[in-house]
């Protein structure tokens, strides 16, 4: 079954999402740890200020992105809400954990605890919309965003749903940046050119997916799959493309999850597509557990606009823009594939 993308929104570190022209500004924690920060909208214009007052940044970003996405799709009430998050509302978890240790378990505020659960955002969106439909949240490392989308696809086919709101969010906080650098996941090296995606990032991206084709849709998700890396790249791609009756030569562009110009993790894939454009995205959003939602948003925008921003190219081979294949290694074990077309 094909899914159509009816509406999108992304709150990301990149400015001017319609035509991104430069990489985001790099911010620092403790004057040394580089990272990206989302450019956030004016929330008061989107969310009831009375509710806004106790929301963390992740909640504001996630909820605002969801509401803006529904507006973009011209949908007031989705049939279901499914979210994905790597670390959830980490600011609230960090706050409650710190408080509980510092105060020796006494006089703790309930709000950070309540909002630390991973389903906070999906249920808050439902609460704001009074949406009683299906509601779920996938969490943790791995293909959580892809699984949320898979769930949406099953729901649409099982229950005849028309509009499912699917999204992902992850916020970055100072303590987490410190830990990520200490773990050696990011290098604090000034020699390396700043124009790289290998920095901690964050973002919220939402989509309204539907089984119905329409002129106003952004793009079509012809197929997507989460595959185990035990199989060779060549076999993964050939099986996936055969299933979708398309040849390697007909793939206009591939978008890969590399995080720097020197990242060799994807050469086994890029080598398979000598005539396709190669695009990347992590230099525009940073590295985080649900960055593939940003990739999907960027790719469908490119297809809708019939144009790819220059900054997204690693290699330009053709001027066609009818389809994009996203290839993203979500963990060492799993690779996610999305075949999109306009």
């Amino acid at each position, binding site marked *: 079954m094909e899914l159509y993308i009816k509406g999108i929104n992304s709150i990301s570190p990149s400015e001017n999402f319609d035509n991104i022209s430069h990489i985001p500004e790099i911010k620092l924690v403790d004057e040394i740890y580089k990272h990206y920060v989302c450019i956030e909208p004016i929330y008061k214009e989107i969310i009831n200020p009375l509710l806004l007052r106790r929301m963390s940044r992740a909640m504001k970003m996630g909820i605002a992105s969801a509401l803006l996405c529904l507006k973009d799709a011209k949908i007031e009430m989705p049939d279901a809400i499914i979210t994905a998050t790597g670390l959830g509302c980490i600011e609230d978890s960090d706050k409650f954990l710190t408080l509980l240790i510092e105060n020796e378990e006494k006089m703790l505020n309930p709000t950070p605890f309540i909002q630390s659960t991973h389903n906070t955002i999906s249920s808050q969106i439902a609460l704001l919309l009074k949406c009683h439909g299906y509601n779920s949240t*996938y969490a943790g490392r791995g293909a959580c965003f892809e699984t949320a989308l898979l769930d949406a696809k*099953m729901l649409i086919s099982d229950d005849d749903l028309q509009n499912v709101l699917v999204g992902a969010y992850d916020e970055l906080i100072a303590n987490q940046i410190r830990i990520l650098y200490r773990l050696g996941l990011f290098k604090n090296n000034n020699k390396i050119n700043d124009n790289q995606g290998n920095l901690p990032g964050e973002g919220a991206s939402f989509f309204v997916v539907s089984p119905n084709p329409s002129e106003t849709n952004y793009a079509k998700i012809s197929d997507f799959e989460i595959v185990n890396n035990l199989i060779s790249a060549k076999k993964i791609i050939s099986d996936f493309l055969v299933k979708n009756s398309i040849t390697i030569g007909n793939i206009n562009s591939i978008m890969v999850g590399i995080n720097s110009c020197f990242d060799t993790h994807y050469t086994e894939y890029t080598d398979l597509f000598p005539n396709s454009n190669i695009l990347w995205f992590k230099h525009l959003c940073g590295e985080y557990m649900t960055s593939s939602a940003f990739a999907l948003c960027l790719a469908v925008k490119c297809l809708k606009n019939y144009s790819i921003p220059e900054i997204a190219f690693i290699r330009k081979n053709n001027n066609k823009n009818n389809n994009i294949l996203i290839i993203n290694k979500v963990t060492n074990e799993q690779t996610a594939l999305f075949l999109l077309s306009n």
Partner: protein
Amino acid sequence: MKKKVFISGIGIISSIGNNVIEVLNSLIHENSGIIYSEHLHSVYKNEMPVGEVKLTDNELKDLLKLSDKSQNSRTTLLGMMAVSEAIKNSEISDINKFNTAFISATTVGGMDKSEIFYREFIKNKTKGKLKYICTHDCGESTKKIADKIKLNGFTATISTACSSSANSIMVGARLIKNGLADRVIAGGADALSLFTINGFNTLMILSHKHCRPFDETRNGLNIGEGAGYIVMESDECLKKSGKLPIAELKGYGNACDAYHQTASSPDGYGAYLAMSKAIGNANIMPNNIDYVNVHGTGTPNNDLSEGLALQNIFNNNVPYFSSTKSATGHTLGASGGIEAVISILAIQNKIIFPSLNFNQQMKELTICPTSKTIKNVEIKNVLSNSFGFGGNNTSLIFSAV
């Protein structure tokens, strides 16, 4: 024609037993696992009783044949125990023989280890052993358990507060129905942590005594820990291995109360919706339900809301119902999995397990939970409710085969 989903194995660990047999015996004999904590060192350990698994982390590691030095959160260890038992119970010899998926649920994940890390870290950001923070994300326990059982197939982690593992079972069933998996191991695990004890304490919904679900004098819940997983298989998959199923997962329903961040709506609309969706999905009538394993946390709010929803859906003809949380404690993200196992045990053994500590009917309701073990009851369909913060409500229906 959608495929049917059968259950071929169960595994459980909780405060009332470290395996299926022990849990069954405790349930039959009306034993409670709620005690003052021995392993978790909270300042409230002598004030708030909890449903604690009676094994230390090292004892769990021994049973799992893991080295003492291995870095696993307690959530992961509990999950490994129940998953290993479920696989054994299902007589699976080669986990990768069929297209097998693993859907796991947790809310605290490795919070026990994060707590150790943070004690050093908040004093000095360059301190704190990094090995303790690596278990923080909810996907970590899923991956560790999948590695332990050497699974190559699809894995996913669900975290929807206290309905988490009911949702993982539901999603697992839908993977089978959609032909995306032949066999799914699904459920959830959650360990006790200072984070959750203190969190629920800030909400002022922890009872200082044994919880009393559906009792007029109920004043809160007892937090518990544990894990519960089931093995689900398609009909074809069962036939190929020549196994007989122990039950069927006949229906499921997920709905959102959309009323409040933590409280349930006064009329239990979300609970009503989840139950009615599940009954509709199972293609049965409310009067086909023989027993309801209720969410029944023992908080004033939940039990009133759920009670009204029950009266509503069963049109005041409510079947036997009980909250086994009175014995196990509320195991949060694991409760849906633990109560799935208990629902299946009820069917297998023809027993209605009681709600403990019940004395006085709630004045707003016309119904009372079953408060004594009832044996030799023909149970065809069990409805199991799991409701979470934010109104994430899920109901499952387990049926005899």
